[in-house]
């Protein structure tokens, strides 16, 4: 009986604490001390390259802002980073922790659309703005009016890829490999199919695989039998590296195309098979624009490696957020949200201005991949502007 009473008291306390937590969830804007900004990303697991690049990009931006005097009259930005281990459920936990325990004023992340889609509702619920650097799936910003992105969306990216394959590579019959576990890959596949068919080309039935698969020889052999002029692999870099390798081993030398999801450290394991592959990307390191070249120089000095496009987007996302906090003049969630909606920043990846659906509209570049000196080289081919 005594135990029972203790239990009841315990649960009552927990409920009470939970109630307090909820009420103070929508952050009481503090006016002194560091400005806390949360960032969640896949620092480990399948998407580790995405998490590391985006966090490094954001870190660089935050350091630059702090060295230049910080925001809101000399307050420093402090970036709190959470690892979601490349798992959607952990992404949502990480954002809940950042918002309810660390009381961050805004959240940056994720790269993979599936994980952003899992975590964005948390941001929306607590009215804490979220800016995703690189989630291109259309549905991401449809979660709510607190979710923004600084990259183009997949309907545009798919159009760019389909047009390049049709007009520049003169492909008429193409195959598509899609990762059915990733919203990104599924969305991009739809868009490629739509545009390529409209252009007058033929798209063979998409072939499905799942994230983590490592043996694609059976599905590639099936694709080979249908003799396509080009292949789209719309998934992420860990599988892309193996797909190109096994395709070449099966004697399939046609062009293979991918989206920005191919940008990852492990792609270099595709080795010589990367010859004759093309991707659509957010920015090119060869762009002579001083904004881009200064970013590259600073990044190389800080992290001792060449930045990829994911790092550039992480940098841009942090810059847009800092600019918006400065213009809002406060860290209050709804006010910062309104400031982000009206942002107009010259970023590394282009002009960052939100449209009505909280996406930015900007050009995409097509790059040809090469394998040299043990690493992937991204060679600029062309820029395609949105109509």
């Amino acid at each position, binding site marked *: 009986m005594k135990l029972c009473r203790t239990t009841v008291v315990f649960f009552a306390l927990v409920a009470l604490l939970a109630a307090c937590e909820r009420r103070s969830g929508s952050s009481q804007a503090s006016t002194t001390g560091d400005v806390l900004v949360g960032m969640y990303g896949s620092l*480990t*697991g*399948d998407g*580790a390259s995405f998490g590391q690049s985006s966090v490094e990009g954001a870190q660089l931006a935050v350091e630059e802002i702090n060295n230049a005097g910080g925001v809101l009259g000399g307050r420093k930005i402090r970036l709190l980073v959470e690892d979601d*281990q*490349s798992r959607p459920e952990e992404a949502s936990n990480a954002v809940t922790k950042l918002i309810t325990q660390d009381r961050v004023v805004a959240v940056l992340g994720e790269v993979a659309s599936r994980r952003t889609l899992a975590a964005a509702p948390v941001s929306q619920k607590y009215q804490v703005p979220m800016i995703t650097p690189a989630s291109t799936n259309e549905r991401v910003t449809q979660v709510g009016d607190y979710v923004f992105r600084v990259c183009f969306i997949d309907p545009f990216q798919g159009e760019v890829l389909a047009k390049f394959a049709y007009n520049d590579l003169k492909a008429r019959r193409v195959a598509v490999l899609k990762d*059915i576990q990733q919203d990104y890959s599924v969305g991009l596949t739809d868009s490629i199919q739509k545009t390529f068919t409209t252009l007058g080309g033929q798209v063979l*039935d998409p*072939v*499905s*695989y*799942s994230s983590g698969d*490592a*043996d694609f*020889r*059976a*599905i590639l*052999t*099936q694709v*080979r*039998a249908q003799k396509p002029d080009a292949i789209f692999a719309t998934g992420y870099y*860990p599988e892309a*590296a*193996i797909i190109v*390798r096994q395709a*070449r*081993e*099966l*004697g399939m030398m046609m062009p293979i195309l991918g989206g920005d999801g191919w940008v990852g450290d*492990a792609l270099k*394991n595709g*080795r010589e098979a990367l010859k004759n592959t093309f991707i659509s990307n957010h920015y090119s390191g060869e762009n002579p624009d001083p904004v881009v070249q200064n970013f590259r120089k600073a990044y190389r000095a800080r992290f001792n490696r060449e930045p990829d496009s994911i790092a550039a987007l992480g940098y841009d996302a942090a810059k847009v957020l800092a600019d918006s906090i400065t213009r809002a003049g406060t860290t209050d969630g709804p006010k910062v949200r309104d400031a982000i909606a009206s942002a107009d920043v010259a970023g590394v990846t282009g002009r960052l201005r939100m449209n009505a659906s909280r996406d930015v509209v900007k050009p995409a570049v097509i790059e040809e991949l090469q394998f040299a000196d*043990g690493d992937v080289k991204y060679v600029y081919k062309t820029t395609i502007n949105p109509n």
Partner: protein
Amino acid sequence: MDTFLQQFINGLSLGAIYALIALGYTMVYGVLRLINFAHGDVYMLGAFAGYYLANAMNMDANPSVLGAVVVTTGAMAICAIVGIVIERFAYRPVRHHSRLTSLITAIGVSLLLEYGGQVVFGATPRFFPQMIRSQVYSVGGIQITNQSLMIIVVAVILMFGLEFIVHRTKMGKAMRAVSFNLPVARLMGINTDLVIAFTFALGSALAAVAGVLVALSIPRIDPLMGLMTGLKAFVAAVLGGIGNIPGAMLGGMLIGLMETWISATAYSTYRDAMAFAVLILILLFRPAGILGTSVTEKV
């Protein structure tokens, strides 16, 4: 026809992987009547041991066959020791309890290795260095890589090697005796602990060979890689008749071929489910497996 033959080759090279791992399951089961669920994870450890050895020897930059042999041997030695340690500290203490206890212990060891592996190696997939540069042989529209070819050949050689050890050597005779009746074998003066330790060492060394060879052909390795592959190899062992060495080979090849054919249809994402559907069917209709002989147990 090209496509059919190519899929056949694809199936065989995938099946050889399952066969290599299934050999280890079958060995341990044959001697101890224990399904060593940690076997798939020893395979993972083999791949990681190979990864670290190969990187230490800088094999990615200087590929050589001799180096690959050294790496494989090293991984075999490491896994053999791991196998002995697992047997000594996890299975031996519960050997005299019911078989269910051993089975649950095996699952525990498996989880320990998987999640311990995530702590030690990290969850991020690694890419195995190319110790032997891949080469493609092309015969009339059919392509096969030197690595796939190597897996098939090694699997067949190891199958015959095991058959030889079990049926033609003194240790093999002791293994069969222990398998037949453990207490009586001990009464006859056989050092049963040694025989069982040897069985585990041999099985684990086989798993290491599989780990390194597979990582050469499919270079992505991570701490959970042994989970699904291990389960499918287990199905392969049951399909061929668990405890039967040529059966493991046959089962592995069949599972590989079936998976390849499923992948080639519109149902490609169901290929993982297929192995388990086979397991259910085989347990319903022929529990002893294709080459196994059913033994009626006296009650």
